[in-house]
């Protein structure tokens, strides 16, 4: 399971709340997961949809995903499996294009006022939800207000004071500060999906997904599958498929085997050690794309001796991130001493540490630190952190630092992280696009995800200024300075950017692996 960034586990809340709601009675006779096809017909909210088949040229794509979506409410889920599905059900106002810059989606165009504090979006004409109702500006406003309230992605709307719908096709946002990255934020991913105002009112967003995307929701059997069918009224190109069945297959090797034997057409990940094997297989298309995720180690600045920047730097010098990268990912990741990958416009070519145990030892001696034992917290939810921890332990062992590896399940891990009960932890942030995603919440002294307790006035000033800077080059310069300082002060010790690995059968046409892991099947067909 991947963790959508930069969010902590608010979804769990919603989950538990949902759990409490649904706890009244259980219908034992409910044939969950059986007879999906029968339900398809019965549950169809709009029988008219069944008649129009022109849009689709045929076939149901069987896509394997590594786990259950925890829920199907785009505003509250944090599960990447949910987003793999919802990517095809919902739309956002704008969306990341092929180069990840925002392009029109539900909004056809937009304007900003001279003071940069008022944004006016014009909606596309004739867009309808899957239930047949028309998309209006009210739906957009209601969606953003819900997002701002639900907490999960509220931070993306920090800069927005109010949303208004002066007419059916116009949405106006009033900002409290200039926000050059507003488009990246409102269209970052389907966590910012536009849902119908009626669904929000009825409280059915999670139970009956009703979007505007290329595919409409048919059924969800936890532990088994999620079924979607083509939306013939989709506003964009496609869909060409009749539908998609997402099969839940938790076991990596089973997933690969099922692709090899043709039982599934597409899989959402590949174990790095099997890349070569799959690349050599003529019956499989293996796709490897540099992603925007990054993995790192962080030290608890609130605890001695990690409050001493020299100790943090010593650890950075002692680590060999090339080895950590290779151990955890084989050849499917790129070591990087900063957060942003080299494929991005925002990449900063800066690698001051390398692998230098002597320097590390000298720094430790200067700081008067010896016999140091580090409590390093990792989680089996992300096995790469467990692998990395073992390599880290032996690397730090070379400079006399002992590492106690503590492996927690993820919810305990998050609780411990929140309570500051750790010397160090290793994890990754996934699905970032804008540099603000990479730095603000993690390294601003008031950032919501600054669990390591890093505080530096200069970094704060740089990050605050960069947020509001509208000139792209000037903005990049600010982020470069901030990133340099973050690396120098070792707020995070960065490891690598992993590649995104997907594979599919040669029959699948028109699908591309994207660096933001958006799994868009709108223009996919089976040949």
């Amino acid at each position, binding site marked *: 399971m991947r963790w959508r960034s930069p969010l902590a586990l608010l979804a769990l809340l919603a989950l538990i709340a949902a759990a409490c709601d649904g706890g009244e009675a259980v219908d034992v006779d409910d044939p969950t997961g059986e007879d999906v096809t029968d339900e398809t017909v019965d549950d169809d909210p709009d029988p008219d949809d069944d008649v129009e088949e022109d849009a689709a040229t045929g076939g149901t794509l069987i896509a394997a995903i590594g786990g259950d979506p925890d829920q199907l409410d785009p505003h509250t889920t944090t599960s990447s499996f949910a987003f793999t599905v919802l990517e095809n059900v919902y739309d956002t106002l704008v969306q990341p294009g092929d180069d990840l810059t925002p392009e029109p989606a539900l909004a056809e165009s937009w304007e900003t006022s001279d003071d940069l504090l008022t944004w006016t979006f014009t909606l596309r004409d004739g867009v309808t939800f899957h239930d047949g109702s028309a998309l209006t500006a009210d739906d957009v406003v209601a969606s953003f207000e819900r997002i701002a309230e639900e907490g999960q992605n509220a931070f993306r709307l920090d800069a927005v004071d109010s949303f208004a719908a002066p007419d059916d096709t116009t949405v106006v946002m009033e900002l409290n500060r200039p926000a050059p990255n507003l488009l990246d934020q409102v269209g970052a991913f389907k966590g910012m999906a536009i849902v119908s105002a009626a669904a929000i009112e009825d409280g059915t967003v999670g139970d009956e997904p009703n979007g505007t995307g290329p595919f409409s929701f048919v059924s969800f059997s936890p532990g088994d599958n999620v079924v979607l069918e083509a939306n013939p009224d989709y506003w964009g190109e496609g869909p060409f498929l009749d539908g998609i069945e997402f099969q839940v297959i938790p076991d*990596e*090797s089973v997933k*690969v*085997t099922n692709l090899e034997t043709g039982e599934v057409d597409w899989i959402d990940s590949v*174990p790095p*050690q*099997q890349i070569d*094997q799959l690349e050599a297989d003529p019956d499989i298309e293996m796709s490897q794309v540099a992603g925007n995720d990054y993995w790192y180690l962080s030290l608890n600045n609130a605890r001695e001796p990690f409050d001493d920047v020299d100790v943090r730097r010593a650890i950075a010098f002692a680590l060999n991130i090339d*080895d950590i990268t*290779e*151990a955890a990912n084989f050849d499917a990741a790129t070591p990087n001493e900063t957060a942003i990958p080299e494929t991005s416009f925002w990449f900063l070519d800066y690698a001051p540490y390398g692998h230098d145990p002597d320097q590390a030892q000298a720094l430790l001696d200067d700081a008067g630190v010896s016999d140091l034992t580090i409590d390093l917290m990792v989680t*089996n939810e992300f096995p790469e952190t*467990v*692998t990395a*921890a*073992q*390599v880290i*332990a*032996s690397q730090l*062992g070379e400079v006399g630092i002992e590492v106690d*590896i503590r*492996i*927690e399940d993820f919810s*305990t891990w998050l609780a411990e992280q929140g309570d500051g009960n750790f010397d160090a932890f290793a994890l990754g942030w996934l699905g970032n696009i804008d540099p603000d995603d990479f730095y603000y919440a993690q390294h601003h002294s008031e950032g919501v995800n600054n669990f390591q307790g890093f505080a530096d006035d200069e970094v704060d000033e740089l990050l605050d200024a960069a947020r509001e800077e509208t000139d792209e080059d000037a903005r990049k310069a600010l982020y470069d300075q901030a990133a340099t300082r973050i690396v120098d002060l070792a707020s995070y010790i960065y490891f690598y950017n992993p590649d995104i690995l997907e594979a599919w059968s040669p029959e699948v046409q028109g699908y591309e692996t994207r660096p933001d892991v958006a799994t868009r099947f709108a223009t996919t067909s089976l040949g």
Partner: protein
Amino acid sequence: MSEHDDAEQLQAPDEPAEARWKETLSALFANRLAAAGVVVLALLILSALLADVVAPYAFTDDDLTRRLEPPSAAHWFGTDELGRDVFSRVLFGARVSLQVGAVAVGISLVLGTLIGLISGYRGGWTDIVLMRAMDVLFSFPVVLLAIAIVAVLSPSLTNTMIAIGVVFTPIFARVVRGSVLSVREEVFVRASRSLGASDWRIISRHVLPNVAAPVIVQTSLSLAFAILTEAALSYLGIGVQPPRPAWGLMLLDAQGFIATGEWWMSIFPGLAIFITVASLNLVGDGLRDALDPKQRSIIQSRGVT
């Protein structure tokens, strides 16, 4: 414990203890399979104790330049995904397995013997309550109960030992209680009691020596099953945690490399478990034949029935 202590503790009026033990041992070694089991076990214990000296590499000694190498002169059992020497890790793994087995069975031995003694000796309500409690624990499938306990305590070496210890307690309690009941009414016990001997004295002088035989057999067989259970829990990822080299854990790692052909990662740790468990079973069977004429089978003593 020295030979002398043994003898004194095990003394029962109608049997010269020392002679009986010699007889048992010679019976055990006459059984060639059991003798082989004893030898293999001794080697295992030795390698576990001396792993630091014997193993060519430390169990955390990783080196990516030699990752996933097949068996060779330098690495007899090949290397794993971090370039660690599998042979060394298997040797250190013996330490983990034997430690878990010994401590876990030690827990159930002590707890079970106490409960069985009290239950059998006291009788009445104490007996009923204790035995019903044991029945309840017995109503769980073994691995499932261990999983539930570890889940509650959170996975670690210590908690694995505790969980397995608890799971095997009822078997010992039953075995001991059964023996106590049969001894309690023996003439020599009744005689001591009428002579005013204290409960403790009766238990230590007469009851314990007589339950020793079935308990020893049970211990050996439980050790085998405890090691098997530990391996299963570690394989499931909820037993011993990395970087500690437990055999089950090594197999969990190895599973990701079966598809790519690194067979040595899964063969050798599994063989180690198999050989250890098989030798404990052989010794257990041998001890049973030598000590326990009632021929309780390995299956019964595992609580399968």
